[in-house]
């Protein structure tokens, strides 16, 4: 199936505003994501000043507006794809083509991580070009063991000094096994940007995660 088109369904929709300041808003969001992926499992503050249409979260929107454009096919999970205002908002602010096929996406937004598709349906890059891979932006409730359906992980690898305890939710019960499967593909694999209210954390493909 080719790109989803919502244009005819929303002829008079005026998208909500994006970053208050597009240049500095994008820079600040990028820097938060950069540190988050540089130091897996250590949440970074992510202040946001935009109000995207539900169920897209402000933090996921900030990450995607900062990083996506016409060069990055974007996939939305079913809950997001069911909201035409979300697609209109993202098309208006990023120009990214929305794709129905997850394997064609460079970025994917997952609003409902408990029903997340297996990582293997997304692009993992090739042995020669492992960077030609998807980045998954997940919308979570929090980075504590108290978050709903929180999973506790023990992280090691580049960016982690020694080992680190990390908890976040909601995540699938088998998240540790999924991350291990992703790590086994290294240097191929997908990279995870986890968002929660006011914060962002990273789980790049390089991370070694075990159930804690």
């Amino acid at each position, binding site marked *: 199936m080719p790109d989803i088109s919502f244009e005819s369904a929303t002829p008079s929709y005026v998208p909500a505003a994006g970053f208050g300041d597009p240049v500095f808003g994008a820079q600040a969001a990028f820097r938060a994501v*950069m*540190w988050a992926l540089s130091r897996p499992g250590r949440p970074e503050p992510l202040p946001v000043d935009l109000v995207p249409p539900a169920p897209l979260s402000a933090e996921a929107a900030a990450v995607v507006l*900062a990083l996506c454009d016409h060069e990055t096919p974007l996939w939305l999970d079913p809950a997001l794809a069911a909201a035409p205002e979300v697609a209109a908002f993202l098309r208006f602010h990023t120009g990214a083509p929305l794709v129905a096929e997850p394997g064609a996406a460079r970025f994917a937004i997952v609003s409902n991580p408990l029903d997340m598709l297996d990582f293997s349906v997304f692009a993992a890059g090739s042995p020669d070009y*492992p960077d030609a891979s998807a980045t998954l932006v997940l919308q979570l409730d929090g980075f504590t063991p108290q978050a709903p359906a929180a999973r506790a992980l023990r992280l090691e690898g*580049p*960016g982690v*000094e020694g080992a680190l305890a990390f908890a976040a939710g909601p995540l699938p019960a088998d998240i540790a096994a999924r991350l291990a499967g992703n790590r086994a593909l290294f240097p191929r694999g997908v*990279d995870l940007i986890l968002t929660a209210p006011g914060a962002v954390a990273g789980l790049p*493909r390089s991370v070694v995660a075990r159930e804690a």
Partner: protein
Amino acid sequence: MSAAPDPAAPDPATPESDAAPAGPLLPELAYNFAYLDEQTKRMIRRAILKAIAIPGYQVPFAAREMPMPYGWGTGGVQVTAAVLGPDDVLKVIDQGADDTTNAVAIRGFFEKTAGVATTTRTSEASVIQTRHRIPEQPLTERQILVYQVPIPEPLRFLEPRETETRQLHALAEYGLVHVKLYEDIARHGHIATTYAYPVEVAGRYVMDPSPIPKFDNPKMDDCPALQLFGAGREKRIYAIPPHTRVRSLDFDDHPFRVQRFAEPCAMCGARGVYLDEVILDDRGGRMFVCSDTDHCETRQAEGHHGGMWGGAPGAAA
């Protein structure tokens, strides 16, 4: 405001010859913040994130023409431009010095196009762009070190074909690099490579650390700062995340060793730092001083003095 300056004009390449002050204060909209347009920044930022996720792997990116020649570190400049924010404090060094033409020009470029604060103090900088050195003062958690890279491919001199080097990296087939180092040993009795000494990052990719002296290689290992590498002409970005294992390649019978200097710095008396030879006269007089000028000046200000301090040979205590 009259006609806005053409952002492609090559003016910032020679700011010192420009009588106008290099202040932040160009007319609004004359340049985008930090010169690059937003789409280019997004593309570079995506490349940086993939570089961080795959430590030591060279991510291709669509490098832009910058208003300065390639030899001036356009790759590093583009990486710096993509990460820089209004609250950053930028330091630029060239072979350890803040005051060379190249360092002054790049610092002026970002003062002018981004209006950011600049410093020569390693400890005050949030972003340090460097050509061919790592500062002596240990870097800290929130710092970003951006290297200017002329030739990013550690296998280039061994295998000129890009398709082949990609394959070798894909297979982690690094025998050629070891053969090259071993030839050094056969010819010289030791590994003679002293600059751009290859490293293995996080147990996987072999990486060219850019032409830093191998003296600096150990500083890359388990460094708390984020290290980003930009090659403009060859259009590659790569990275070492904080606290990542960086191992200089070697052999059991010929372990990696850094250079040692017999004398301390003639100006500040520092030992265990990288020294440059300075010719004093045409009768063979010479001295060795810190290559890192900020480190040397800070030490002198703290009261540490070497044998040539104050210009009097042999006057030191």
